[in-house]
């Protein structure tokens, strides 16, 4: 039985919209999400832009303060911790962002970019730091003579390797990969994905992987959560979500992703989603997905569906009937 590294309970984040004088509305970014991240696992989050994937992940890492709900790390409620007490937590968690062109400081040498967490967490200084940086660079497939160069001298794939090296510097247990391979070409992406899988096994890491590319999420994750307009609509193992998708949104999303088989083009698609994602400022009542749902029922615009276990931990938020 694996233990939970992270647990979030009823996590909610609303962003206020203000004019000069008062709050005029709220963006319902994440609402009432319960999620468990088992130690050593990879949890994938999928969903379209604005569904709250990134907000959820950043709230879990305490980079955004939740409006309500709890984040529990190793059995401890993190809300009670002071900023100072969070230092150890920060050391054990790291992020790799989507765009390696804006996430590396263009005026810092690679040795400083990668070595910064070591100095901040007082792990190593001076020559010791350089030794650690060197071993990190080797771990991600870069060389010693890359240490005294600037970020602009590297290609997109190499930059993402640098971002990963920096994330690994303070010896974290958990890494959030926020669209970490989305900006890369297929052949470069394959190398980075293989490397991430290798690092996870070697260093016993736990990943949270966010992507809009379903095939990439499927490749890397063992558990997958599907989000729509701030709510988790389906959660389960990779096989449960991909082989027996149950929520109409998940089914529509999977059917919409183009397949690699040219013969599929003549087959009618099971579910075709019409329309666009509504605004998160005034989200639809009841089930958020009801205006686009191909099999909506009369009560869907009134009753909010809860996540229900339909067998072996496969959770779906859709009204029965």
């Amino acid at each position: 039985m694996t233990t939970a590294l992270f647990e979030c309970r009823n996590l909610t984040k609303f962003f206020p919209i203000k004019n000069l004088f008062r709050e005029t509305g709220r963006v319902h970014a994440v609402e009432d999400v319960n999620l468990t991240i088992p130690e050593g696992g990879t949890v994938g989050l999928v969903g379209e832009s604005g569904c709250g994937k990134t907000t959820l992940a950043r709230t879990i890492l305490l980079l955004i303060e939740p409006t309500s709900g709890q984040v529990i790390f190793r059995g401890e409620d993190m809300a009670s911790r002071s900023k100072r007490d969070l230092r150890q937590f920060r050391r054990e968690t790291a992020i790799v962002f989507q765009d390696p062109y804006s996430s590396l400081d263009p005026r810092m040498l690679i040795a400083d970019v990668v070595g910064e967490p070591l100095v901040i967490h007082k792990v190593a200084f001076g020559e010791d730091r350089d030794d650690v940086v060197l071993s990190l660079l080797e771990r991600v497939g870069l060389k010693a003579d890359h240490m005294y160069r600037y970020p602009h001298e590297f290609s997109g794939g190499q930059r993402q390797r640098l971002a990963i090296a920096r994330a690994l510097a303070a010896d974290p247990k958990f890494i959030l990969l926020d669209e970490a391979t989305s900006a890369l070409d297929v052949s470069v992406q394959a190398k980075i994905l293989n490397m991430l899988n290798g690092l996870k096994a070697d260093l016993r890491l736990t990943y949270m992987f966010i992507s809009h590319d379903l095939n990439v999420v499927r490749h890397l994750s063992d558990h997958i959560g599907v989000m729509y307009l701030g709510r988790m609509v389906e959660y389960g193992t990779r096989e449960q979500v991909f082989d027996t998708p149950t929520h109409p949104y998940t089914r529509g999303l999977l059917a919409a992703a183009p397949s690699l088989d040219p013969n599929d083009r003549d087959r009618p698609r099971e579910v075709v989603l019409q329309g666009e994602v509504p605004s998160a400022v005034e989200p639809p009542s009841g089930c958020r997905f009801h205006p686009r749902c191909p099999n909506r029922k009369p009560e869907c615009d009134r009753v909010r569906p809860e996540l229900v276990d339909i067998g072996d931990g496969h959770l779906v938020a859709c009204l029965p009937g």
Partner: protein
Amino acid sequence: METREDLLVVDRLKTQFFTYGGVVEALDEVSFEIRLGEIFGLVGESGCGKSVTATSILGLVAKPGKIVSGRVLLDGENLVEKSEQEMNRVRGSRIAMIFQDPTSSLNPLFRIGYQVAEPYIYHQRRPKRQALKDATEILAKTGLPDAVEKSRNYPHELSGGMRQRAMIAMSLTCEPDLLIADEPTTNLDVTIGRQILDLVKDLQREFGASVLWITHDMAVVAQMCDRVGVMYAGTIVEKTDVRTLFRNAKHPYTERLLRAIPSAVKSADKLEEIPGSVPQLIHPPTGCRFHPRCDHVMEICSRVKPVELEVEPGHMVACHLFGGEKEAT
């Protein structure tokens, strides 16, 4: 050599950029043809020359770039030799383009309806009032909800998917013979992107236009294109119909690229990698540009640029692996 009707023939097109750092050999004798009413895909990774091919066809290669040699024949007329004025009558009217990023390719200062109506006013000299009315009609055809109302909006008031619909409406105004689509779904969400793919396919059938579809996404190729050209470092390495490409890819690059894609069918732990990285085009590798990364590299590969060979009917591959066999027979 073929009697089938080709709308566009790109013949040994060579485009180079004369930068301070040296000459970037962006396109090295790229040849392909697009038949009437077909969707031809150009697929490849960043920097392989897909977009330069599009701008070369339209005569829009930005300085310091220049078409050095080669021909672009639209219905037999060589576009490379045309003057700027003559090209202005071709662009938007006979050849139209849909760009990747509708946000930066729409003018933020003009209403959607006017921007869509512009080709009517410019190319067909319709009166403005009539043009605006026709524009709402074509906007409605692209599935834009409340087209009359939306045509009075500015681009920032529309969502990404709606802006892309407006771009498509604009490109179809003059019923072009050739539509060039440069990664039109890359910036869109999965479900919206799929709506746009379906829309272009429906409209293409209705208008009977030929389409040059540029993408890096093999899955989009599989669902959209009739024939495909695979590009690598400024050259076309393989050219065939789409089913053959996915069933029987011959060029070592195509083969490995297809195996590097994580897919639903195979859930192997390790993805296939292509060793090395895409070369600089200032000093591209001699001979076959893929030879430094190729598993099957032979002595001849670094010396001689491979010519296109027809390995089976309609399936062209530029690789010495297949040239040897040809010499023997």
